[in-house]
């Protein structure tokens, strides 16, 4: 078992955004948190990342309790909705950032860092962009850089916060496949937050459907369609059945 989420609860003031959420994911699994805005999916992702902390509940990764561990020490690679690229650094420096920030004892030397960055850029098929700055990149390229930067720290888990929402449909479809391939190649688990049913169904092994701070149902795409657990799920997935029957899924 890779990541275990137990009874995670979160309040913003008196407003409860997460209500005893439980979720377990397997090693190397691709999970989507799918739900309308305000369902708590981004809050859950940020708590997993260590950027926010839960008011109750427990998080563990590979048996280690990480509930109160700082984001810096979790080694979870995160891709932000805005990509959050460092505008004052070249693509190479963006990707190398995580390696350069390591404590001296386990920091690779300069040659090793640049080798690793080269390889990563090759893998993401953006090796020709290394010397550019983020302001000189297209949306799709920026997204690839953000993903590569997150992978550079050899993350134990990949967290993706609506990584496709700023892209147009055509680019989006191409990048989905590329993301899934990369994740398979690296062999780490991934959690994708999205409000786009089609995207979740196409990319994820299992989907957690969220509403009102709770996980309504957590299952494979097929099972979700075949036997929705609550009226909310069946209503939310309305229209996806025909999509899936048409064979557009994974």
């Amino acid at each position, binding site marked *: 078992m890779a990541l275990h989420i137990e009874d995670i609860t979160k309040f913003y003031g008196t407003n409860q955004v997460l209500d005893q959420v439980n979720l377990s994911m397997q090693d190397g699994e691709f999970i989507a948190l799918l739900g309308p805005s305000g369902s708590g999916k981004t809050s859950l992702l940020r708590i997993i*990342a*260590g*950027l926010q902390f839960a008011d109750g509940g427990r998080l563990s990764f590979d048996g280690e309790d990480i509930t109160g561990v*700082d*984001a*810096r*020490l*979790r*080694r*979870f*690679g*995160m891709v*932000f*909705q*805005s990509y*959050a*690229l*460092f*505008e*004052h650094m070249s693509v190479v420096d963006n990707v190398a*950032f*995580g390696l350069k*920030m*390591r404590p001296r004892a386990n920091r690779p030397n300069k040659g090793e860092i640049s080798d690793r960055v080269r390889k990563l850029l090759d893998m993401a098929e953006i090796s020709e962009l290394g010397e550019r*700055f*983020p*302001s*000189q990149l297209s949306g799709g390229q920026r997204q690839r850089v953000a993903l590569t*930067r*997150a992978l*550079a*720290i050899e993350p134990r888990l990949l*967290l993706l916060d609506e990584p496709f929402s700023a892209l147009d449909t055509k680019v989006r479809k191409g990048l989905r496949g590329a993301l899934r391939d990369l994740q398979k190649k690296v062999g780490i688990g991934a959690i994708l937050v999205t409000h786009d049913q089609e995207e979740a169904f196409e990319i994820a092994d299992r989907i957690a459907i969220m509403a009102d701070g709770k996980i309504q149902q957590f299952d494979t795409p097929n099972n979700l369609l075949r036997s929705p657990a609550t009226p909310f799920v069946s209503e939310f997935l309305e229209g996806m059945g025909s999509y899936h029957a048409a064979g557009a899924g994974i």
Partner: protein
Amino acid sequence: MTTVLSSGPVPSGPTRRGAARVLPGFGLTLGISLLFVALIILLPLSGLAWQMSQLGFSDYLRIISSERTLAAFRVTLSAAALATIFNACFGLLLAWVLVRYEFPGKRLLDALVDLPFALPTAVAGISLVALYDKSGWMGTLLDGMGLKVAYTWWGIALAMVFTSVPFGVRTVQPVMESLSHDIEEAARTLGARDWQVFRHIVFPQLWPSFITGASLAFARSLGEFGAVIFIAGNMPFETEIASLLIMIRLEEYDFPAASAIAGTVLAIALFVLILANLAQGRASRHLNGGA
């Protein structure tokens, strides 16, 4: 952005101006602006230039290289440099506190920052003297420790710090407010410690405004007169600032000497501002989405 409509080269002025025109009456607004700039900024400066032109180059050198003038420049430049370094760092800290934290009295503190601009500088000078003179309570305190601020070089630096505080804060503050939290969070998930986030992520983004603030503070300190002369002691060769020496030469009706010193102060200030502008342009090349 406005060039979308015109695909080819733009042959004539009116077309281009038509596209860029948001407010009506471009000719009128520009004309008034230029008139203002000419009357308020350029006319006095050309007066200075005219005065300087009365002077031969060797006369200029003789005035500038006299012991007393050189000493005044040394005092002014060194005190201004210290005040600038102090205000750049302190301004960064103050802006940080004002932007990043919520605390009671925050708005009052924010308003207080502008006080050195609003206060007549002479008032500032007199209050500083009252405070740091041997009989003032800070002065008594420091005297006990064997330190003397009033009527020394330190007093000059202190007065310069006081009058240029707002530059250090107000230039950095808006940029700091516009920084996106995502970027710092991204750096943290990549393993950066707090100081690394500041050093590698936050500060590089603030750097252009930091330079601007520092250069403005320096230029202001160079020319500060009212606040400084009360606390400076004004001993020739020791605590006499350039602005005071200009004043003294004017009172002696030695206009050429006054204008030579004034012109030099102006040139230094301009030089620093231009330098800062170049550095700022270089530093912000890739920021703000500009390629």
